[in-house]
């Protein structure tokens, strides 16, 4: 107590010079700080902030492989790229696919990761820690490995899934060879991989619910189902919101799963916005056009994040 009081008093007694950081002492502080913070800030600016500016600038040009070699060949095209994007059927279909992925994926992730969290949270023994590990493992598995494994599981003739279905008398399904099925397959894999992190978030939230709530409900004779609906779910409101928002943001950028699992096919049915950007940038070397798409995607992400902020602020005001 007294130490804290002394400390605070000492700080107030200091000359204001060192507080505001002006003058020679301030300069020295700035020098020291730049030693610690400087390298990081430079790298962050060059690899996080600068790219956004570069994307914006190149989106107004026709930069391609020739332009990369000789900058004098780059031409300013104004808003051409954006105009072409909006009328490009491939871009439209990529945007549509992304919407489908988000609309299907986010609710599935919320439900599945909550279910996994409830299961893992049922007990606290070593056994349940092992269960948690099994649910979490896909989340830290490399995406290429995941895509290979699922590609094999989905294989029409020698895949495990169709083998299991055949035991139940269901004919072989074309998991990756038919547009609608391929979309479903991509969603299944991304959900399987995405549940792990969100399960952890739900588990943390579940363990934060005061036990007294459940004890009181039990005394009042509420059964398990009732306790879940009236205590657990409302208490998880914030966690659910968090999971839904972060998952939407990451699914808007869904990229690696369709890239490695289906290569965007069949018939471009699994090309997402990010995959569209990658293809234009690195397979067709249309950097200007791809940058325009990047910038649009960036705007979407920023908008969703801003909406999230607004909703959360309203939520906390209530």
């Amino acid at each position, binding site marked *: 107590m007294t130490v804290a009081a002394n400390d605070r008093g000492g700080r107030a007694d200091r000359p204001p010079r060192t507080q505001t950081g002006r003058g020679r002492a301030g300069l020295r502080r700035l020098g*020291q700080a730049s030693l*610690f913070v400087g*390298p990081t800030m430079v790298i962050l600016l060059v690899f996080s902030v*600068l790219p956004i500016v570069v994307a914006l600038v190149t989106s107004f040009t026709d930069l391609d492989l020739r332009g990369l070699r000789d900058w004098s060949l780059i031409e300013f095209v104004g808003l051409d790229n954006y105009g072409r994007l909006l009328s490009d059927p491939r871009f439209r279909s990529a945007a549509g696919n992304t919407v489908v992925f988000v609309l299907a994926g986010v609710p599935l992730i919320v439900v599945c990761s909550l279910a996994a969290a409830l299961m893992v949270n049922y007990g606290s023994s070593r056994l349940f820690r092992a269960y948690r590990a099994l649910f979490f493992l896909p989340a830290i*598995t490399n995406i290429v490995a995941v895509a290979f494994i699922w590609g094999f599981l989905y294989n029409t003739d020698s895949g495990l899934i169709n*083998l299991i279905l055949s035991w139940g008398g269901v004919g072989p399904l074309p998991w990756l060879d038919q547009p609608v099925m391929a979309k479903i397959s991509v969603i299944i894999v991304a959900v399987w991989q995405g549940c792990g992190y969100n399960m952890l978030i739900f588990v943390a939230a579940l363990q934060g619910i005061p036990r007294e*709530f459940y004890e009181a409900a039990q005394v009042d004779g509420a059964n398990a189902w009732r306790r879940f609906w009236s205590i657990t779910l409302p208490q998880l409101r914030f966690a659910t919101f968090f999971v839904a928002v972060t998952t939407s943001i990451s699914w808007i950028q869904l990229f690696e799963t369709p890239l490695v699992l289906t290569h965007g096919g069949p018939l471009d049915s699994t090309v997402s916005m990010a995959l569209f950007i*990658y293809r234009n940038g690195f397979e067709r070397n249309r950097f200007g056009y791809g940058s325009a798409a990047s910038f649009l995607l960036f705007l979407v*992400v920023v908008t969703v*994040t801003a909406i999230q902020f607004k909703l959360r602020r309203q939520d906390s005001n209530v």
Partner: protein
Amino acid sequence: MSEPVVPDQPALAPSPVPSSTPGQSSSAYSEAGPYPPPASYPSAPPAAGPARPLARPRPPTDPAPADLTLARLRRRRRRRTVRLIVTVLIGLAALTYAVPFLWMLSGSFKPANEVLSRPPTLLPVDFTWSNYVRLFRELDFGTYLANTGVVVALSMIGLLLRAMAGYGFAKLRFRGRGALFAVVMATMMIPDQVTMIPTFLVLNGLGLVNTYIGIVMPTFVTAFSIFLFRQFMETIPDPLLEAARIDGAGELRIFFNIVWPLSGPILGVQAILCFIAGWNSFIWPLILATQQSKYTLSVGLALLDGQYSSEYGLKMAGAAVMVLPVLIVFVFAQRHIVRGFTLSGLK
């Protein structure tokens, strides 16, 4: 009481990372950052419900008649049976979730003709190691492995920079600190997929395409990691640092002799996460390693899809090589990894 002991505190509470006390230091930034630290859930407003005393006094447990205790005993036994059944069912669900990994292992030991048999065999009938041998003999997996090692090692250097930045933001007072930190947090919002093309252009301009440094650069420092370091280092007592300053120690000396040794727990968690992220990284090596001599494991693995697309045995063996090191690290450090990911949410 036969009830299982459930910890009252979240299992993640005894974390060395001070963000488990969100009310204090982090609140200003959890408001500014795109994601709130998940550890703040316990402080979420309680649901609106009928106002009711939380903990009711239990009815006094007076000595009950014999038949009543018998009924209670029976009920308790039934409850235990239910628990056992539910535990087994959950175990089955968890195992089902991991079936793809078993399928991977099973496939990786099948010879080329068996892996494509229809219907497939569940376990390899004709067990072979040849897929693994081919990866390293016929294909360049030795090179890929070495490259991945270099990339992981280089990204560990980033750990030092992040720790230093965390210290700077936590303990050094300088003008513009708040604004700079806000910039750091704002970069969390910028997705890799958006910066793919421009980052390639920037690295191309710097002549860093197809170099190891170029491959690690885009993820060399990450905002969230800096945030966690800052959170941790704020808990280091000021008098300790002041004393060293009075003794004439420079800030660098203070950092390496006092702060670094004290930061063991967070360094451990961050190093493990850094290893996993570096080992698994795919987008940046894919874009920036333009020659096969610089391919990492994940890019080399993806390459199998072209030439060997129907050689599932080979592909499963490659996937296993990719997965096993992470699996081993995970088994030994599950607690740390889980804690790290819980703190970092999705990122």
